[in-house]
């Protein structure tokens, strides 16, 4: 069952008069109930902006320029005010990057639960102190925390615990979809693994749809069942996660994969990606990755490649995944294949 169907999402960011930065360009996204999708990319690719746009959390000077977001049948892109607020219960929610900043330092964890439960209470719900404590303990146990955490203040908890509390707070609203924005980036590498495991288990147990935003391909590979790679505001590849390690991919994805290696391996080849990310205020007419791409051909500089089938998913590349919509690409791809361009 399709839970989220977003079409032609465009987000523009205007820090001052005269500058328009296109953070997200023409993104279409369809999620089925229970899917666990990873949004991967580097700084400035638009993944966090997209996550915020989907959960209607964008703030000025960023705004959703156009696009429809159908969540569970309702077009939430056009909602605002109270109607939008009501969508957050049993609807969609977001867990932010830094657990510390998301929690109020002068209120106990119990107070946090109380605030959320009361704010979204239904007409018949009454939350006494005891009820809040019980529900709080129940939610905390889901994220593998003891009920004793309820009485503590955020600064008395470790980074990993705070992040788990943030997740528990979100679960209080029984959302159908949760967006995790870099949930483990600020954490220790060992704690990171534990928190990601908890998120994975939760997703399996509770069955909510999850979007994991991360710059780390490894984390996304291990936790999700579908990966979307973003570059310069566009989705350039959409594959099942377990296909990441094999087959052909979008040149950017391949370049990214080349930046990872197992430190235990006998021989290590570590690469970077030459060049600099594009200036989003001056979008190129063609593929944004063309200046840095070893496979770029003439068509790449002129026409933005649409997402076309590649392997089990799709990719936006004239050479690797030529689209029927762009007939010139087929010719270019044939030439490139004949020239035997080196792949991974």
């Amino acid at each position, binding site marked *: 069952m399709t839970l989220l169907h977003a079409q032609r999402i465009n987000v523009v960011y205007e820090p001052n008069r005269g500058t328009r930065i296109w953070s997200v360009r023409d993104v279409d996204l369809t999620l089925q109930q229970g899917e666990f999708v990873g949004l991967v990319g580097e700084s400035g690719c638009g993944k966090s902006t997209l996550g915020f746009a989907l959960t209607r959390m964008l703030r000025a000077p960023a705004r959703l320029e156009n696009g429809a977001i159908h969540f569970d049948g309702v077009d939430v892109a056009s909602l605002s005010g109270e109607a939008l607020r009501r969508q957050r219960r049993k609807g969609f929610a977001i867990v932010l990057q830094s657990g510390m900043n998301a929690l109020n330092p002068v209120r106990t964890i119990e107070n946090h639960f109380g605030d959320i439960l009361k704010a979204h209470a239904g007409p018949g719900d009454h939350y006494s102190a005891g009820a809040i404590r019980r529900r709080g303990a129940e939610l905390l146990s889901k994220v593998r925390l003891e009920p004793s955490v309820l009485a503590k203040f955020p600064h008395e908890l470790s980074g990993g615990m705070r992040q788990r509390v943030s997740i528990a707070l979100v679960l209080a609203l029984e959302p159908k979809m949760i967006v995790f924005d870099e949930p483990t980036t600020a954490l220790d590498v060992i704690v990171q693994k534990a928190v990601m495991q908890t998120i994975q288990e939760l997703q399996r147990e509770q069955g909510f749809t999850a979007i994991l935003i991360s710059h780390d391909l490894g984390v996304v590979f291990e936790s999700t069942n579908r990966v979307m790679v973003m570059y310069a505001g566009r989705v350039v590849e959409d594959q099942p996660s377990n296909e990441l390690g094999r087959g052909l991919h979008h040149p950017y994805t391949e370049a990214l994969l080349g930046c990872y290696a197992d430190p235990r391996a006998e021989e*290590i080849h570590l690469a970077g990606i030459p060049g600099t990310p594009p200036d989003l205020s001056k979008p190129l007419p063609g593929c944004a990755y063309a200046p840095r791409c070893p496979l770029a051909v003439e068509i790449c500089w002129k026409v933005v490649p649409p997402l076309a089938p590649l392997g089990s998913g799709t990719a936006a590349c004239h050479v690797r995944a030529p689209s029927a919509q762009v007939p010139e690409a087929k010719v270019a791809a044939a030439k490139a294949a004949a020239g035997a361009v080196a792949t991974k």
Partner: protein
Amino acid sequence: MSIVTPVPPPTLPGAEVEIPRGPAGPRLPGPLLFLGRALRTLWSNGKARIGLVILAIDVLVAILAPLLAPHSPTATSFTPYQSPNATNWFGTTGNGQDVFSQMIYGARISLLVGIVAGAVATFVAVTIGLIAGYRPGIIDEVLSFITNLALVIPGLPLMFILAAYLTSRSVWTIVLVVAFTSWATGARVIRSQASTLRTREFVTSAQFSGERLFRVVFREILPNMTSLVAGSFFAAATAAVMAEASLEFLGLGDPNTVSWGTILYYAQQQNALLTGQWLMVFAPGLAIALLALSFTLVNFGVDALSNPRLREKS
């Protein structure tokens, strides 16, 4: 094992990767360039622009007073208690002085006290705040204690007492009294900002680059506090203008100087409202309010001073 730096891809002719160009030409150091840039930054903010315009008008009036005032402000040659008429646009005082000329010349004192007292207060605040913020430990404790003491004592009553007991009555007394009572707020704020900046990594890196204390404080930390210092100055100047007017109005200033506050003093003494000289009350009141307002408005634009991103013409 190898670290591979891939060969950069071939670029098509005409499809150049854009490397953003830096600012052209050599950079001239100097306070003049700094001031020019500061003014341009302030000008770009709408509210600050209005404030700057009002301030500019006041400054011009003060400087060109001899040319603008139709008569001498102290000459008692006119008929007293006159309503506004052709010769005396704002009427005359009980002593036969031209109110309009007094208003023009009065701008000098108000501006002088406002700016100088504000500057002195800010200077003291920055000195104490920087030292306390940069040197934790006993020095910080002592200076913070003094600052807190100065904050707790009510400013206005202290001002009145000081002004009343000081034997010499002149503008400079007022400047000192006002500065003495208004440095503490700025010091507190600057101290806390300095102590935050002290632990920032670029300060540590500056130390690793061999910088000595003086340079670290004045070339690394202080420039990053420009907004705060400018903000403190304009706040102190606002307070100074109001304080000076209050002191003069209460007769604690020098009754022989001509300032907007003394006009109000005499207006009260001579029951100006009863004699129909309402302009003598409203004109100085409005002028004081506008000057104070202009400082406050300019303060809206100072945040941009410490943010280099906002300096560029984009």
